[in-house]
């Protein structure tokens, strides 16, 4: 499709923002620390660092445990409601972490009506949700579906024949599961847990809403409160190193997942005895209830009391701006991904191939870090960028490129160059080839890439918050601001809009999964 040098150029351009961020951060580490940073290092960062560490470890462990257990139950056992839970457990993915945090804070806080009532009636007490533990709970509940989804596919693709082989060698079903299926699923669980750890490390919305000091909030304060760019960049540099390590872990684990896919006869699920089956149903409903049903019900009831008071002309503004930002961003990402996957197919130079993975590594870089790492060097080099949306879009593309790239790459993989060669030999011209072969085969991937990035951009918080022009508000920003002011109930309307948007790609995902089985 492309001349070789053009292909190389496209790949280098796509990788450029991530490179700029990394180079800038290395530069900041080489700059001597000023007073503010010394102050930070001494008083704030040890706490923030410790909190971040505990949070990442707790959420990773919690999500791995909950996700793997549910995946094993749904993939290997039969119990009441299993068919529903198989897709229903993905529903929590539609609730942005900061929305769930707002619901929890608003309904379980000391002064909340529910807590007051329980306290007076039954004398119940519980630790404040606005704590490290509360943040860990909220993040675990929003992130466990990643582990659930990936582990379930691993269990299902492990195939019946491994279980049968083990049983012919003298193992009971339970022993075979423990000795064969669980070890087989380890890489998948590890890969998805690394993903959860990455998301937790990058989280800003939940910890900010629940007033927990972590490295991302420290970075935000250094940038927004103290206007110390170097401090922010140094914290960012640390975050990026950890994030890239996690990315490496995820990558290595995933490559061994691919080797282990088996295919063959589908797994025959084992009917659980009544009591165990009941417990399985209870466990799955409790998780789904706390992570999805209850928060959505809460948002609905809050929204119904505030919708008339709040839903004025301003909301249309938030709404339109959210859709416009997400739509334009998604369009940009899909276009660049399309160019990129074609370019990568044509590019053969060694350097270009080495650089290419960098363009998707932006996914591992926390939004706060990207915002700071791009905004500073770009506005220094080109001052007129200040107050425009350009930095925001560059940061969007850098962070969410991987989301749009994955379906495009998968789509193009189904279109081997031999098809092009066959078409050329039949006398087909480039435009005709695109219209008759490439577009019909790729349009599904393009749609998927657009929907997935669109929804991620709708929910995106830290980049928008840090790089938007002054006073530019979207639904996500509105939820964040109302939450930080303690106006949880009024945040319900924009929050519900975000949840509704998040349900959209789930429908697509569920459709694909049922297609695969």
């Amino acid at each position: 499709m492309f001349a070789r040098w053009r292909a190389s150029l496209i790949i280098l351009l796509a990788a450029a923002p991530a490179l700029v961020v990394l180079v800038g951060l290395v530069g900041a580490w080489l700059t001597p620390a000023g007073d503010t940073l010394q102050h930070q290092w001494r008083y704030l960062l040890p706490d923030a660092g410790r909190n971040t560490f505990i949070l990442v470890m707790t959420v990773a462990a919690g999500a791995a445990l909950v996700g793997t257990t549910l995946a094993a139950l749904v993939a290997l056992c039969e119990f009441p409601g299993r068919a529903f839970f198989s897709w229903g457990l993905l529903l929590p993915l539609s609730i942005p972490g900061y929305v769930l945090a707002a619901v929890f804070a608003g309904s379980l806080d000391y002064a909340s009506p529910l807590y007051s009532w329980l306290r007076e009636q039954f004398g119940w007490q519980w630790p404040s949700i606005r704590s490290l533990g509360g943040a860990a709970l909220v993040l675990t509940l929003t992130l466990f579906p990643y582990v659930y989804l990936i582990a379930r596919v691993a269990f299902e693709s492990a195939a019946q024949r491994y279980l049968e082989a083990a049983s012919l060698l003298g193992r009971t079903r339970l022993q075979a599961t423990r000795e064969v299926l669980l070890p087989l699923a380890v890489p998948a669980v590890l890969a998805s847990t690394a993903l959860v750890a990455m998301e937790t490390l990058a989280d800003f919305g939940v910890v900010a809403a629940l007033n927990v000091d972590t490295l991302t909030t420290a970075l935000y304060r250094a940038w927004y409160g103290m206007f110390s760019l170097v401090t922010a960049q140094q914290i960012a540099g640390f975050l990026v190193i950890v994030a890239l390590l996690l990315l490496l872990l995820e990558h290595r684990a995933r490559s061994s997942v691919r080797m282990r896919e088996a295919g063959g006869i589908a797994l025959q699920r084992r009917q659980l005895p009544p009591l165990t089956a009941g417990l399985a149903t209870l466990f799955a409903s409790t998780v789904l209830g706390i992570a999805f049903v209850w928060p959505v019900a809460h948002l609905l009831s809050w929204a119904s009391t505030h919708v008339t008071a709040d839903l004025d002309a301003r909301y249309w503004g938030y709404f339109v701006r959210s859709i416009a930002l997400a739509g334009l961003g998604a369009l940009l990402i899909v276009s660049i991904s399309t160019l990129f996957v074609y370019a990568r197919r044509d590019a053969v130079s060694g350097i270009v191939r080495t650089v290419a993975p960098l363009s998707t590594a932006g996914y591992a870089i926390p939004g706060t870090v990207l915002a700071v790492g791009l905004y500073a060097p770009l506005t220094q080099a080109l001052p007129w960028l200040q107050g425009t949306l350009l930095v925001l879009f560059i940061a969007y593309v850098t962070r969410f490129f991987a989301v749009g790239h994955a379906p495009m790459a998968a789509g193009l993989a189904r279109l081997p160059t031999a098809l092009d060669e066959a078409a050329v030999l039949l006398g087909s011209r480039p435009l005709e080839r695109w219209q008759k072969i490439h577009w019909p085969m790729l349009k599904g991937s393009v749609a998927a890439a657009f929907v997935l990035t669109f929804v991620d951009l709708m929910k995106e918080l830290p980049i928008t918050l840090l790089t938007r022009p002054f006073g530019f508000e979207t639904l996500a920003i509105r939820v964040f601001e109302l939450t930080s002011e303690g106006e949880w109930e009024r945040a319900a309307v924009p929050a519900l809009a975000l949840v509704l948007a998040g349900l959209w790609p789930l429908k697509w995902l569920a459709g694909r999964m049922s297609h695969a089985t």
Partner: protein
Amino acid sequence: MRLELRDIHFRREATEILRGVDLQLEAGDIGVLVGPSGCGKTTTLRCIAGLESITRGEIQLGDRVVSSADHCLGAEVRRVGYVLQDNALFPHLSVADNIRFGLRSLSRDDRETRVADMLALLGLRGLERRLPQDLSGGQQQRVAIARSLAPQPDLLLMDEPFSNLDARLRTELVGELRELLKGLRITTLVVTHDQHDAFGLADRLGYMNDGRLEQWDTPYDVYHRPRTRAVAGFIGDGVMLPAIGKDGLWQTELGAIEDPAAEGSADLLLRPDDLLHDDDSPTQARIVARVFRGADFLYTVQLPSGLRVLALAPSHHDHHIGETLGFRLANDHLVVFRRD
């Protein structure tokens, strides 16, 4: 150990997959099941292994009934080795660990001795630490066999053991495998769709069709004395020659054939080796196709009635399509299918 199936039936949902299979395999013998896909071969193996419960009949291993309509001994305690199709080697375990997997009940020393024995027996020494994905197809096949043999099962089942291998390797492995199994004196039942593999391995050969075992005999008898038209059509090449029987003679287009039982109308099975090339023979026909097979030519000739028959000729008898070929009947026995 001796294996006996008595009238076994198996039904999955509304479909009757096995409809009364009877089979006896003496201890130490190798039995082979062939048949079209979907005929129930693999299901038969799965029932014998205890992976499926039969709906009627009995499966007896040695002197114990392991499956009946109301009782099914679990696969994990049945002491049956089963080399599954595509091997199902555990991808996360090394070659040695795969072989060791079924040896849990042995002491540590016995276990290691057994693993070493198996590695030596199947020519896998030096590969014990490799993962299955780093092995060739033939090596994976050997590991799968070693894993199934290691616990010293009473019976070995193999499902399409050569399906992933190329033709040359197959021929090699078939010979090796027969020698190995005979050396171990292990009773074995193999499923394959390839009749060359079947002939190479079997002491007993069975043809399955539509959930029934149509014939269970020595390979020689299955080939030369097929009991049904389906068996005759599946095993070996052959053509049905219409014949009218009268006064101890079958009258056919190729001449009269003596048979005291000749009576009524029938089809006679004609194998390629029943027709020998002979330039001096009065029977001549036009060659319509030929296949060069190295050692010999397989000619297809068309008789005046339009019927096409196969004739075998040594490799140096090089005739072309369109020429006439002389041949004579050289059958030493008759296979007759009556047309009633």
